[in-house]
């Protein structure tokens, strides 16, 4: 361990009862100035990681290093970490100004400096006129901005955010996402952000760590997570995917052949076992071509259209393919797409690299359903 990243988790585990683990063998490095998101369904241990880093919980095993020194034994008030909580945790008996002054008074700064810093922080979140109000007199979005200002006002080295936008409505949430990103880049502060909303993670993060049942599945940039999921859980959690289960009949480093319902699909091997074992193929709905010119795609199969759903900027086609129904295809709403009706027989085609063969064993028992509309938009954004 010669040179350390700014924040480092070394094989951290946390168990409250000694039997089940909330966090298991968690390792992660975060560089100074980086924005890293812990993404996962509820109960995946992401908030526990945050609490251990903030010092509210102690790891059962493993070490956490902050700024090149271990902090397992350091009290929360000596860590100099700003935390934004899910329900803001503003102090209801203090005014907004007093809330912001609290961390500065705790650091025994001179009164003039405190006043100046508080006003600057209020300006930063455009709430200068609210200093004398109490938190209960502010709207949810305003309270959230105060909570963020309070976590930044004492210029911490690191800011943690625990689902800070969870209680806001969608429009406000999107607005705040950009505001958080803008602040983080302007102040060049290191940020670790927890959310179960993959859209949020995509917009904000330099890197995303996808967590499942206390472990990290994959840590990568948003693009890499979407385009190159290493595990089925990630493929399902980020964006939308068609899953096709099949048996591996042959595999090379660059390509494998998988038998599904008596036909062979050519796929890109990511995490597969020996021949004859089962695998799960994932294909993004927007990477499926409808009635492609012949010989353009190595995978081409006949399918029957079950349903067509108009989504505005794109169409969603549900088709029966290879003996399974509800195979989803997204086609952009451009000139000349029309003419397909439910019951028609069509050809669907896709590339080998867009069809990733992942390990069945890593499938999450309950994939979380996502808002498909948001996913689609984000998906195409990331692709551009």
């Amino acid at each position, binding site marked *: 361990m010669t040179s350390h990243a700014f924040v480092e988790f070394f094989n951290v585990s946390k168990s409250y009862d000694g039997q089940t683990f909330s966090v298991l063998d968690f390792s992660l490095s975060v560089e100074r100035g980086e924005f890293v998101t812990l993404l996962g369904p509820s109960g995946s241990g992401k908030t526990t990681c945050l*609490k251990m880093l*903030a*010092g*509210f919980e102690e790891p059962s095993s493993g070490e956490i290093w902050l700024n090149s020194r271990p902090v397992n034994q350091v*009290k*929360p*008030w000596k*860590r*100099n*970490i*700003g*935390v934004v*909580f*899910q*329900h803001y*945790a503003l*102090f*209801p*008996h203090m005014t907004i100004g007093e809330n912001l002054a*609290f*961390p500065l008074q*705790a*650091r025994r700064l001179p009164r003039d400096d405190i006043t100046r810093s508080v006003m600057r922080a209020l300006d930063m979140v455009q709430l200068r006129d609210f200093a004398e109000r109490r938190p209960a007199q502010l709207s949810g979005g305003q309270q959230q901005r105060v909570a963020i200002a*309070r*976590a930044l006002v*004492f210029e911490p080295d690191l800011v943690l955010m625990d689902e800070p936008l969870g209680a806001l409505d969608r429009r406000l949430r999107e607005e705040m996402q950009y505001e958080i990103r803008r602040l983080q880049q302007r102040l060049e502060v290191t940020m670790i952000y927890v959310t179960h909303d993959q859209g949020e993670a995509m917009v904000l993060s330099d890197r995303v760590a996808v967590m499942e049942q206390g472990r990290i599945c994959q840590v990568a940039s948003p693009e890499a997570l979407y385009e190159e999921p290493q595990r089925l859980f990630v493929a399902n959690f980020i964006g939308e995917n068609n899953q096709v289960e099949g048996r591996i009949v042959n595999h090379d480093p660059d390509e494998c052949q998988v038998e599904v319902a008596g036909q062979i699909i050519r796929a890109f091997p990511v995490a597969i076992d020996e021949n004859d074992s089962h695998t799960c193929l994932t294909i993004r709905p927007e990477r499926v071509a409808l009635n492609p010119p012949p010989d353009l795609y190595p995978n081409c199969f006949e399918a029957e259209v079950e349903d067509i759903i108009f989504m505005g900027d794109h169409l969603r086609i549900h088709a029966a393919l290879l003996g399974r129904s509800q195979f989803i295809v997204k086609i952009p709403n451009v000139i000349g797409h029309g003419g397909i009706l439910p019951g028609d027989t069509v050809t669907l085609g896709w590339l080998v690299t867009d069809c990733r063969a992942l390990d069945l064993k890593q499938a999450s028992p309950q994939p979380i359903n996502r808002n498909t509309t948001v996913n689609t938009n984000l998906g195409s954004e990331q692709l551009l």
Partner: protein
Amino acid sequence: MLNKARTGAILLALPLTAFILVTFVAPLGSMFMRSLYDPLVADIMPETLAALEEWDGTGLPAEQVYALAARELGLAREEKTIGRLATRLNRDTSGMRSVIMRSGRALKRAGDAPWSETLPDINPAWGEADIWQALVRTGARVTPIYYLNALDLTLDSDGGVVRQPEDRRIYGTLFIKTIRVSLVITLLCLAIGYPVAWLIAHSPPRMSRMLLVLVLVPFWTSLLVRTTSWIVLLQQQGVVNDLLVRVGIVADEQRLTMIHNMTGTLVAMTHVLLPFMILPIYSVMRGIPAVQMQAAMSLGANWPRAFRQVYLPQSLPGVGAGCLLVFILAIGYYITPALVGGQSGQLISNFIAYHIQTSLNWGLAAALGCVLFVAVLLLFLLYDRVLGLDRMRLGA
């Protein structure tokens, strides 16, 4: 529709309203009346009192007054109301009981010579102005005397308000003692109850439920049992003294007196009233999210500072409610001091009970009760002024 709903609401509240009127407002009103209105003497000796209006208040009244007094005393003896008359007059001027009772008995045998001579013959007291002044004083139907007595004041022979002689001033000090003891009990309850409430509010659910049951168990035990168990524990040959002697902290011949005095009252009442402190504080604490302390600590405040500036202020509404509850209960508490208070541990309510049950001076008992009521009301208003009743909460 609205009218129907309103009628329904009134009908629903009717039984309670009736109950409160009969069991609460009516007795309270009657007691309040008694503290001011005392028609006893006026009812027994109406004519004597009417005749005494002519009297100048010094010297002796006319023969006619003596005659009326003798007749009405005789009537009172026949109707067996003379005992109450004697008690009432005795309360005004001590020694009057025997004067009246003896006169009543003697009048039966006396002839009807001029009463202004016969009565002083029966008892020389009738030859003094004092007894007539006492009759005039006690003859007023509406009287401030009970309130004056409750405040250690009395009327002198000219009708002026003066302080009681030193040896009869008991209630002023008693009121102050009662308020002081109640404050001490409230503070003891707070000192013991706040940490317990904290523990219950912040333990894991199972533990917290168990602790809560432990707090509530005393409610299922008779107050009498709880109070008498303190006698078992604290008496001179009791468990605590035995333990102290066994360990050698206290010598056997110097066992501590911890019961039947003020210590006993303080200990037992603190125990009895503790749940009333713990429960409101607990329910307010439960409404304070755990992240509040975490937020304060992450912002750089160490535990004591975070507690002082963030947790404590948010728990104050519960503290206020608990203190008010305990204080008001303590100031009127009767049974525990009566059982374990001995001589020195008696509070104002014990004297009220004494006047109701033993001395049968209901007027004074009522006046003491009303003074207590007003004192509590004033403290309540003071509390509202200083801390604000609207900030008080019994739950989150």
